[in-house]
C-alpha cells in the first residue's frame, strides 16, 4: 500500500537553503523509518517567490535518493488557501517546519502532523535549559554557602557526598550549557 505525505515548504523559514535541505532530510528519514521500506510518495507544496521552482527541484532530489517518489505542487494565492489544497491531496502525514505559517494552518489540516524544529534553535533551547539549571545551582551554592559550609567541613561521608554530587551536577549542567551553545554556533564541541 502506498503512503501519501505532504511536505509544506515554507519560504518564510529562517536559515536559507541549508535549513530547507535539513528539513527535507528529516522528512525523508522519518518516512523511511516509519514505512519500513514500503512505498510512499510525497507532494512538496511550495509557494515560489522566484517563480522558477528551482528550490523545489533540489529538495525533491533528497527524497528520490532514498527511493521516495516526489512531485512538486506549486501554490499561488493567500496562505489561507493552503489547508484546503493540502487536504485535497488526502495525505496521511503532513510535514511542517516550526514557523508562523505552520502554527496558523495546522488546526485546519487532516492527517498526522509532524513538526520539524530547526536543529540550531533546538540547541539554543537545550542550552538555555541546562543554563537555567546551572544558574540555580550556582546561586544555591554561593547564597547559602555559610549554611552548607557546616556540612562541608564535617569530614565524613556526607560531606564527601555533598561535594562530589554538587561538583558532578555543576559539571554536567554547565558543561551541557557550553556544549549546546557551541553547537548552536555551529561548532562541534571537543571532549576533554
Amino acid at each position, binding site marked *: 500500500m502506498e503512503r501519501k505525505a505532504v511536505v509544506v515548504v515554507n519560504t518564510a523559514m529562517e536559515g536559507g*537553503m541549508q535549513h530547507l535541505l535539513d528539513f527535507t532530510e528529516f522528512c525523508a528519514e522519518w518516512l523511511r523509518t516509519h514505512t519500513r521500506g514500503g512505498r510512499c510518495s510525497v507532494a512538496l507544496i511550495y509557494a515560489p517567490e522566484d517563480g522558477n521552482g528551482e528550490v523545489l527541484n533540489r529538495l525533491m532530489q533528497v527524497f528520490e535518493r532514498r527511493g521516495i517518489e516526489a512531485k512538486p505542487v506549486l501554490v499561488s494565492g493567500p496562505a489561507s488557501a493552503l489547508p484546503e489544497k493540502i487536504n485535497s491531496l488526502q495525505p496521511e502525514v503532513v510535514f511542517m517546519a516550526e514557523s508562523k505559517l505552520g502554527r496558523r494552518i495546522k488546526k485546519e489540516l487532516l492527517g498526522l502532523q509532524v513538526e520539524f524544529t530547526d536543529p540550531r534553535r533546538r540547541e539554543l533551547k537545550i542550552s538555555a535549559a541546562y543554563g537555567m539549571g546551572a544558574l540555580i*545551582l*550556582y546561586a544555591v*551554592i*554561593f547564597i547559602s*554557602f555559610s549554611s*552548607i*559550609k557546616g556540612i*562541608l*567541613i*564535617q*569530614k*565524613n*561521608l556526607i*560531606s*564527601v557526598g555533598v*561535594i*562530589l554530587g*554538587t*561538583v*558532578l551536577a*555543576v*559539571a*554536567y549542567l*554547565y*558543561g551541557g550549557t*557550553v*556544549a549546546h551553545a*557551541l553547537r548552536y554556533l555551529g*561548532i562541534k*564541541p*571537543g*571532549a*576533554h
Partner: protein
Amino acid sequence: MGGFVPPPGGMSVEFMDLTLETALAVALLGFIGGILSGFLGSGGAFIMTPGMMNLGVPGILAVGSNITHKFGKAIVGSRSHGELGHVDKKLAIMMVVGLLTGVQVAVKVNSQIFESMGRAASNLYISLIFIIVLTAITAVILRDLRRAGRDEERSPELAAKIHRVRIPPVVHFDVAGITVSVWFPLAVAFATGYLAGTIGVGGFIGVPAMIYLLGISTRVAAGTELFLAIFSGAWGAINYALRGYVDLRLVVLLYLGSLVGVQLGAIATEIVEQRVAKVALVTVIATSDLGRIVMIPEYLREMGYIQLEEGVGHLLSMTSTALLFGGALMAIGVIFKKVREAAAVEKESPAPSYR
C-alpha cells in the same frame, strides 16, 4: 635566621573570604587553564593550582579543589570521549592499584605536613614538587624543540630495555601490545598517582611515561590515562574532601572558566601546528616554574627560617602572579595569533560554490 616552630597538631584549614575580585580571578584561572588543557591535552593544573596559591588559597586547599575539579570534568568528558575505546583494560586495572596507592600516599603526606608543620611548610612542599616537575618538563620540551625533525622516528629504546627485564610476574597486555614485568606499570602508576595527589598534575607525566617507558602507542596510552584519571580524580577528591580540604566555591568557579576555555583550546588544536603548541606549552610551564621559585623565600620567611624586609613578601607574591599570568597570557596570545592568521588565509581563498 629564626628557628621553625611547628603549629600545634590537628590544624584544619580555613576557607578564605571570597571577594568578587577573587572569584573573578579564580574563574579567569579556570579559563586560562581550560584553554591550555584543551589545547595541550592536559596541563591546566600547572596554572590553576599555583594561581590559586598566589590568590591566598592555602596550597593544600588549592590542590584538593583542583583535583576535585578535574574529577568532575573527567567523568562528564568520558561520556563522549572516543579515546575511551582504546583502553587496555587489563593494564588499566593493574595500574589502578598503583595509582590509588600513589594518590593515597600523596594525600597523607600533604595533610601530614599541613597539619603538623603549618600552612607555609605545606605551601613550600607543594611548590618544591612543582619546581622539580616543571623544571624537568621544561628541559624535556626544550630538548624536543631543539631536536625537532631530527629524531621523530626514534624508537623507544628505554622501553625495549625495560621489556627485557623479566622480574616475575611478566604479563602480556593484548591491546597495548607489550609483554612486561608488572612492577614497571605499577611503578609508573604509583608515580602518576603521587604527582596527581600532590600537585594535581598526573596525566601529563603518565602518558609520556607509558609511551617512553612501557612502549605503549600514544592512542592506547591516552585512552588508558583518561580511564585512570577518573579513578585518580575520584580517589583524590574523596580523600581531600574527607579531610576538609576542598572548597566547593573554588571548584565551581574554576568550572565557570575552564569548561568554556577547554572548548576554545580544543578548537585551536585543529588550526595551530605542533611546534607552536610546544612553544606555548614550554612558555606556560617555565613561567609557572619561575613563579613558584620566586615564592620560596616568602615561604621560608613565613616559617621563620629567613628574614625579609617589609614589603618584600608582597613584592615576591606580585612577581610570582605576574609571571604566572604573563606566561599564560603570552602563550594564549601566540595560539590565537596563529588561529587569526589561519582564519585570514582561509578567508582569502575562494569559497566553494554550490550547484
